[in-house]
């Protein structure tokens, strides 16, 4: 650890993401202690947790948001500066006709219409995204398991269009898919029931739940989800995104207040916006910020009229998909009780993935799931299917059955997908008579700890909680975003990289999603290539240079 590099761990509430390097030196020690002890300490907890202690409180573990050394931040802004300047230069070349414009053009007949896109909207896409576009939407042609086959594609016009070469890059290690428990599989024996349902039902439903699309297997799934989560009732929906965006408006409306974490997923934001409620945003996982907003809201009431709020809904996620951090559930529950607010917990990434038996963050913290008013989650990730659920008290679910936008207007869930979820949940619960599910959960947790601790040991800056299978590795430099992903693919590792606007401008990162299906060898391979490529400082310059030139190389 150099003097330039402050290790800062989010120990208490005051330590909030990017809130400056206060107490850097005292944390320095604490942080490295945690790092050394963390693995063993929590290991013990985990062993305890495998018993029947469902509501036993456990160590939360820390969310770390280590700050980058100063020179990296400077280089990062410089990187963006160069690319933006270069972008203006190229726009100028395009305007005077020296460079060919590859963009699709408006039809001749409609040239005199108001332009569909404003020019500055497209600046980022045209000049920055286009250079690294090959790192996203990579088509694959196999199961999204621990390894997959990527279809090779090349571009003859600097990423404006792609051409599939017909070749495939086989057995690429999949660090990108949300296949936490390894239920993305195509083993014929496991999928027997899914195949049977397909044979019997076909794939569609052709009607909504409220009309004639309420199949008995939908009800079976909902009972099972409620049982799995340990709550009274549940309802399932065909799309995870829509579960949020189409149900929040049923719960809150005008005169209600939504307090939303600043890093909440788009679907939550959209749902909040569609509801017509007032939205206020608190700092990520910051309890002071939340409490301040709660206090203020109740004391001053609605803006202008000062009438009291009808209700206040706090919206948080279990695991934040870009940061890998875990919600501070016990603290939030305490605040919610104190201020009589309601809690909407989105467990898209955490259900199945955390907690000794995969019941999500409530189990992880040893909290009774009935204390959370609205439990939401998706089936896309841990269950290897698609769709989402909302669970909670019977009154809540009954109300949604009659008032959810999804129940009235959207086609019901596909029967084979429903069967896949049932199969996965049964496996996790162990009611299929195997211990497979339990093993997978343990394996996931081991893999997570292993990857996280190894990467940390090597000095990489990793965000998030030690128990979160979402592992963001900070890259910072815009040039690295593309170069890292390409270099990893060359070594047959598929990673997800994200930069602005999905992250703050100076915090571009790679994201690894750990799966129970990953073997130790696969993880070792990932770790080794990471080190080879990222530790060498000379690469920083080299990447920036390559990035700068790649369009003309």
């Amino acid at each position, binding site marked *: 650890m150099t003097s330039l590099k402050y290790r800062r761990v989010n120990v208490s509430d005051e330590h909030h993401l990017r809130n400056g390097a206060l107490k850097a030196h005292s944390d320095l020690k604490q942080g490295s202690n945690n790092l050394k002890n963390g693995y063993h300490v929590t290991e013990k907890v985990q062993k305890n947790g495998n018993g029947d202690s469902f509501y036993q409180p456990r160590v939360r573990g820390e969310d770390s948001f280590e700050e980058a050394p100063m020179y990296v931040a400077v280089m990062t802004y410089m990187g963006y500066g160069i690319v933006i300047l270069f972008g203006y230069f190229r726009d100028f070349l395009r305007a005077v006709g020296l460079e060919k414009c590859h963009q*699709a053009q408006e*039809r001749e007949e*409609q040239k005199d*219409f*108001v332009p*569909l896109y404003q020019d500055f909207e497209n600046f980022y896409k045209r000049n920055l995204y286009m250079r690294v576009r090959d790192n996203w939407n*990579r*088509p694959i042609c196999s*199961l*999204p398991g621990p390894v997959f086959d990527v279809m090779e594609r090349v571009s003859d016009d600097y990423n404006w269009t792609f051409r599939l070469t017909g070749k495939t890059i086989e057995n690429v290690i999949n660090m*990108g*898919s949300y296949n936490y428990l390894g*239920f*993305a599989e195509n083993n*014929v024996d496991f*999928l027997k029931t*899914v195949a049977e349902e*397909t*044979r019997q*039902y*076909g*794939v*569609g*439903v*052709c*009607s*909504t739940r*409220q*009309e*004639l*699309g309420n199949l*008995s297997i939908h009800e079976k799934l909902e009972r099972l989800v409620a049982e799995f989560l340990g709550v009274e009732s549940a309802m399932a929906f065909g*799309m995870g*995104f*829509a579960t949020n*965006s189409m149900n929040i*408006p049923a*719960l809150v409306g005008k005169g209600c207040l939504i307090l939303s974490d600043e890093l909440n997923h*788009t*679907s939550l934001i*959209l749902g909040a916006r*569609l509801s017509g409620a007032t939205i206020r945003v608190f700092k990520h996982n910051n309890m002071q910020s939340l409490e301040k907003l709660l206090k203020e809201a*109740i*004391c001053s009431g609605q803006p202008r009229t000062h009438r009291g*709020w*009808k*209700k206040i*809904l706090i919206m948080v996620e279990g695991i934040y998909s870009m940061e890998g951090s875990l919600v501070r559930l016990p603290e939030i529950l305490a605040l919610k009780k104190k201020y009589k607010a309601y809690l909407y917990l989105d467990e898209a990434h955490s259900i199945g993935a955390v907690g000794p038996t995969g019941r999500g963050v409530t189990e992880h913290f040893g909290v009774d799931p009935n204390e959370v008013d609205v439990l939401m989650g998706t*089936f*896309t990730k841990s269950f290897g299917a698609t769709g989402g659920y909302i669970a909670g008290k019977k009154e809540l679910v009954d109300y949604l*059955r009659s*008032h959810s936008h*999804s129940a009235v*207007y*959207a*086609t019901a*869930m*596909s*029967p084979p*997908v429903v069967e896949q979820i049932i199969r996965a949940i049964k496996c996790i619960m162990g009611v299929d008579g195997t211990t497979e599910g339990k093993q997978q959960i343990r394996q996931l947790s081991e893999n997570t700890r292993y990857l996280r601790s190894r990467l940390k040991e090597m000095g990489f800056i990793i965000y998030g909680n030690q128990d979160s299978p979402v592992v963001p590795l900070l890259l910072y430099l815009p040039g690295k975003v593309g170069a890292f992903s390409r270099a990893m693919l060359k070594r047959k590792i598929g990673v997800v990289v994200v930069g602005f606007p999905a992250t703050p401008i100076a915090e571009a990162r790679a994201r690894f999603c750990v799966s129970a299906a990953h073997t130790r060898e696969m993880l070792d391979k990932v770790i080794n290539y990471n080190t080879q490529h990222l530790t060498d400082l000379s690469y920083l310059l080299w990447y920036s240079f390559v990035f700068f030139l790649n369009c003309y190389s």
Partner: protein
Amino acid sequence: MKHAHAQSRDSVKMAAGQQWVLVEMVQAFYEAPAYHLILEGILILWIIRLLFSKTYKLQERSDLTEKEKEELIEEWQPEPLVPPVSKDHPSLNYDVVTGPPSHKIIVNGKECINFASFNFLGLLDSERVKLKALLSLKKYGVGTCGPRGFYGTFDVHLELEERLAKFMRTEEAIIYSYGFATIASAIPAYSKRGDIIFVDEAACFSIQKGLQASRSFVKHFKHNDMEDLERLLKEQEIEDQKNPRKARVIRRFIVVEGLYINTADICPLPDLVKLKYKYKVRIFLEESMSFGVLGEHGRGVTEHFGVNIDDIDLISANMENALASIGGFCCGRSFVIDHQRLSGQGYCFSASLPPMLASAAIEALNIMEEDPGIFRVLQDKCKHVHKALQGTPGLKVVGEPLAPALHLQLENSTGSRTNDLKLLRAIVDYSMDRQIALTLARYLEKEERFLPPPSIRVVVTVEQTQEEIERAAQCIREAAVKILK
């Protein structure tokens, strides 16, 4: 003072001209009377105080003490999270379907002929489709475990997009994993705050949600009333002339449905296209009910009217009706469609369509392409049903003869929506006892902008035989006579 003198002397030495002003000022300072100086000093202090004091003193006074705050928090009682729902709420207790919702459907334990699912082409029961889905299941499993951007793009997705584009004869198509989310994501991808959308009053709920998400100005015109639309467009034209600079950046869109799900009639597309070029407005067309139904090859309302598909800026449809799979798609020119790959929220931020559902949709498209006769059959059946239902006492048929999903509304409302619904539900129950599965059209009464009157949905599929249609019509007639008296 000496110091000041020295300074001014220095500056005089350094430069001439301007510096004299400074000297004069200093001299004036000496000459001014003391009371003047004191007054000026006070004024300056006053200004400084004004600048640094808080602007609103009133607020300070109304600040609450900690104790008062605690009392307020103690007193505040929120409404319950959800209002209680009575046990016999009409939309709480769903009909339960056991087994597949195909041509023969088991509703609440009774086997019926299906007149309620949007399985227009009967592809839900197709063995070919099921087989393709099974093959896909064997290869890819079920879920994609990721959004399209992050390794959730499978070869079958690319193939389906290509096939849809080819089928619709457009440059590009984009698929969504949920029918409802398709148009609801597409509209806000283009239309932003400040833009203007002209929309038909009868537009379906997903369009309404898309409009809401876009935060644009929404102007409703009367259902299928082109004069009313033109009136709004003219109004806007006058508005534009007042502020031509602003008008140059306000995007305008007309959003219509090809075949309205709420009214079962077809939009006057050729007139709309004329208005489009006259007033330079783009057209977004939602074709969930008309795709795979209207036109010689099932391409929808553009083919039905012989309108050049390039004149429509964006067509969206779901794959959950005629194609009997799951999901939806948008198609049009690449210039328009490609934008959604970064801006369509339901596309970017949601897991992609399970490959087996995409494979099923591809096979359904194959069947549609191989046998275009199927659309003729469907259209004939639609006409047949429409005709057979005419003259049902007390009920009127709403919709065009070509519509595959008609509405039966009460001729004379009882004056209360709840009672109307009860009467219609009694007819549905009567028919279900006689093996005809029907359903009420469901709406969220408080959320719909223009709530359609209560109705029974009658859905036509190619699998219904002449005899079954006659039986259904007979059954509905009996029920109407008996219940509506």
